[in-house]
């Protein structure tokens, strides 16, 4: 057996989680240095976080403050369960995870996997959302204390802290696992479909839950809360309530359940971390792309863009079309559009029909209180969200955008081509959304109104976001994790997104007004007018924003180039 001649020296001090936390704080502080607007954005983020935290706090503390013990269990189980669910799903769908400490950076250090995971976990706890959640859930401690005195409050305090750990561990484990799947060339399409199906299921699930809530009586609801309380979703939050209700044994068991769940999640996370650390190199053998090279130009154009002329515009469209599919980050965004596109209108239009469900116990009448105006509104939201995806379209390119700057691509051409390529994916998606919704609502006659609203909102959204993408671009981190975000970018991103959504919605409001005023005539006019409105807005947007882009090309390049 080979014996190593030189044994590595034993480290003098063990690396603990404290180092990771300090490193994260240091990186955060350095990010702020000399960047006034970043500090301002951070403060805005903290204020918004505190606002929500205060709201959550009072909601969760309400049963205790009011002395209504029968609500306590339900609020704890359902409220807490929703919180865990939110931490689980929201990073995947919208927000991404803060990757200030990129795991790949630690690959060369002699750290055990255990030290690394606990360290990164501890660092992940240092964030505004965690703080906000902590403040909110202390409301439960108040509730438990008011109902069961000090012992219950103490147990609940332990409970909410473990519960918070569970939330963060779940968010990290799930995004990391999905990132690995999306990176791996073999299963990434599977992962995409999985995510879409999961989200599409939320709609029907919600209908079922609402129907159940309506038809269920008090005992059934309490029973459901008890069951949720024994799953990891509700266990940490209900432990103190159990003590207050005289079941101290249950509290211990529930904390154990939570601890086991956290352990399992961390183990899962550490597995996928390893593959993230070795990075893209181990992303599995690349699909065999050898084969004949053939004509270069013919290769560049995917079938979906085959109609385009073989010129500058065509090249831009073809490259963008290829990128929407090949870039994991962009594909994740396309999935989000599909998910939101189906989920939100179903929720608004079918969810609003719960009265009908209660009366007849049948889904046949779910359309009872939906209307062309409501449908238009919800679909305008979908169109706006779809167009929001390109609010940082140059950020996707990063420094590669230099190629277009060097070639001197005119701004208007650039924006028009990007809109066209994006539309190749999104327009069929929007049509599908309209058809599915019309079928679900059993109102095929509304198809024109739906498609009209969608296209009008999508087109005017593209116009607004053309400006946002030129003026408000920011760099995305160059990691292989499609869910990763730069620190502080979260607030900037949300801020710009909000701004662009308000503007886009305002631009599409005439469609709703027309739906409200014109009545049945609008059923026929909506589609042609919506199409023309959207197309016109998009063209106008590319025309005006293109001028701005011409003047700002190099500034834009600097904005999207990640700092190294």
């Amino acid at each position, binding site marked *: 057996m080979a014996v190593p001649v030189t044994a590595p020296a034993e480290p003098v001090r063990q690396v603990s989680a404290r180092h990771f936390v300090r490193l994260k704080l240091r990186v955060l502080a350095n990010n702020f240095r*000399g960047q006034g607007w970043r500090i301002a954005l951070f403060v805005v983020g903290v204020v918004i976080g505190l606002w929500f935290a205060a709201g959550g706090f009072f909601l969760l503390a309400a049963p205790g403050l009011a002395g209504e013990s029968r609500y306590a269990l339900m609020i704890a189980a359902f409220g807490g369960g929703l919180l865990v669910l939110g931490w689980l799903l929201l990073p995947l769908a919208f927000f991404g995870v803060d990757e200030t400490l990129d795991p790949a950076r630690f690959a060369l250090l002699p750290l055990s996997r255990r030290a690394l995971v606990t360290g990164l976990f501890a660092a992940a706890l240092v964030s505004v959302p965690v703080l906000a959640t902590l403040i909110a859930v202390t409301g439960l401690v108040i509730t438990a204390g008011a109902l069961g005195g000090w012992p219950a409050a103490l147990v609940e305090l332990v409970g909410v802290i473990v519960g918070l750990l569970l939330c963060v561990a779940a968010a990290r484990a799930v995004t990391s696992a999905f990132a690995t799947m999306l990176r791996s060339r073999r299963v990434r399409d599977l992962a995409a479909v999985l995510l879409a199906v999961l989200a599409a299921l939320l709609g029907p699930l919600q209908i079922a839950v609402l129907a159940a809530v309506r038809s269920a009586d008090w005992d059934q609801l309490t029973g459901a809360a008890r069951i949720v309380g024994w799953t990891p979703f509700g266990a940490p939050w209900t432990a103190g309530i159990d003590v207050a209700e005289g079941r101290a044994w249950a509290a211990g068991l529930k904390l154990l359940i939570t601890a086991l769940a956290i352990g399992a999640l961390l183990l899962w996370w550490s597995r996928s971390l390893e593959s993230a650390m070795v990075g*893209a190199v181990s992303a599995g053998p*690349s699909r065999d*792309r*050898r*084969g*004949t*090279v*053939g*004509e*270069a*130009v*013919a*290769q*560049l154009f995917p079938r979906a863009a085959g109609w385009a002329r*073989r*010129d*500058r515009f*065509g*090249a*831009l469209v*073809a*490259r963008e079309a*290829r*990128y929407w599919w*090949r*870039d994991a980050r962009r594909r994740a965004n396309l999935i989000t559009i599909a998910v939101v596109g189906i989920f939100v209108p179903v929720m608004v239009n079918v969810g609003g029909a719960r009265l009908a469900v209660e009366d007849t116990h049948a889904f046949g009448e779910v359309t009872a209180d939906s209307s062309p105006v409501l449908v238009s509104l919800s679909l305008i939201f979908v169109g706006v969200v779809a167009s929001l995806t390109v609010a940082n379209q140059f950020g996707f*390119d*990063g*420094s*590669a955008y*230099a*190629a*277009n*700057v*060097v*070639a*001197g*691509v005119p701004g208007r051409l650039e924006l028009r081509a990007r809109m066209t390529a994006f539309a190749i994916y999104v327009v069929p998606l929007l049509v599908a959304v309209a058809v599915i919704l019309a079928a679900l609502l059993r109102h095929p006659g509304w198809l024109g109104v739906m498609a009209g609203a969608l296209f009008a909102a999508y087109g005017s959204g593209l116009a607004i976001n053309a400006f946002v993408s030129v003026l408000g671009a920011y760099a995305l981190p*160059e990691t292989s994790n499609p869910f990763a975000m730069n620190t502080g970018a979260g607030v900037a991103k949300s801020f710009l997104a909000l701004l662009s959504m308000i503007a886009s919605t305002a631009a599409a409001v005439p469609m709703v007004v027309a739906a409200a005023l014109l009545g049945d005539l609008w059923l026929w006019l909506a589609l042609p007018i919506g199409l023309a409105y959207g197309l016109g807005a998009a063209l106008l947007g590319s025309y005006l924003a293109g001028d701005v882009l011409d003047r700002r090309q*190099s*500034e834009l*390049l*600097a904005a999207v*180039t990640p700092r*190294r």
Partner: protein
Amino acid sequence: MSDQHPALSLRGLAKRFDTKVAVAGVDLDVPAGSFYGLLGPNGAGKTTTLSMAVGLLRPDAGQAWVLGYDVWADPVRAKGLLGVMPDGVRLFDRLSGAELLAYHGLLRGMDPAVVDQRAAELLDVLALNDAGRTLVVDYSAGMKKKIGLACALLHGPRLLVLDEPFEAVDPVSAALIRDILHRYVTGGGTVVFSSHVMEVVERLCSHVAILADGRIKQVGTLDQVRGERSLEEVFVEVVGGRTATGEELSWLSR
């Protein structure tokens, strides 16, 4: 008209980032048909200078002309004559080599048939045909440099600006790149490239400029700059390096 104008002309180019001055006023004339080496230690401002010269980074002050066309006032014509290979900038690397070349060619407004023919030739000469349809992101560092060079050459520019073309390139590929650049200059083109590898510069260049702390310290033909000494000696002296005394870092030897 390109005969009367220098291939690249820089006047008073300056750039500061926050409080740090990266480039503090650079004047440079690159004669047409020359093989120009821009030398400098790490952080001297080479990349910043070249980025400002080709229209990637807006200078705080100063101007740049490519064959008489102002890069910042008349970018369309200046950029049309220019081929650039930036360093530390990604390519559109989720395309295959052939797709990337087609993209660059069409973006330059070239005829598709010409693009096809030149792309095939370039891939062949640069030995990138074996990669087939592998995405550029999966290329090795040397292959990425070569495809970057191919993208810069595709439209037949009159001036080629290359940032660190020999960084991270193995000797075989380096020889190939040297060969191609040599042929390009012999054919009447002009090359400006940055480097800190003295051997390469000494072997290739007709003209040299040494940049340090954001200023040009020495400029002229290769023989003018190095005189009787080796280029490395001149470089270290101009830049002001230090040599190890042997006392420090004693713990490195056991």
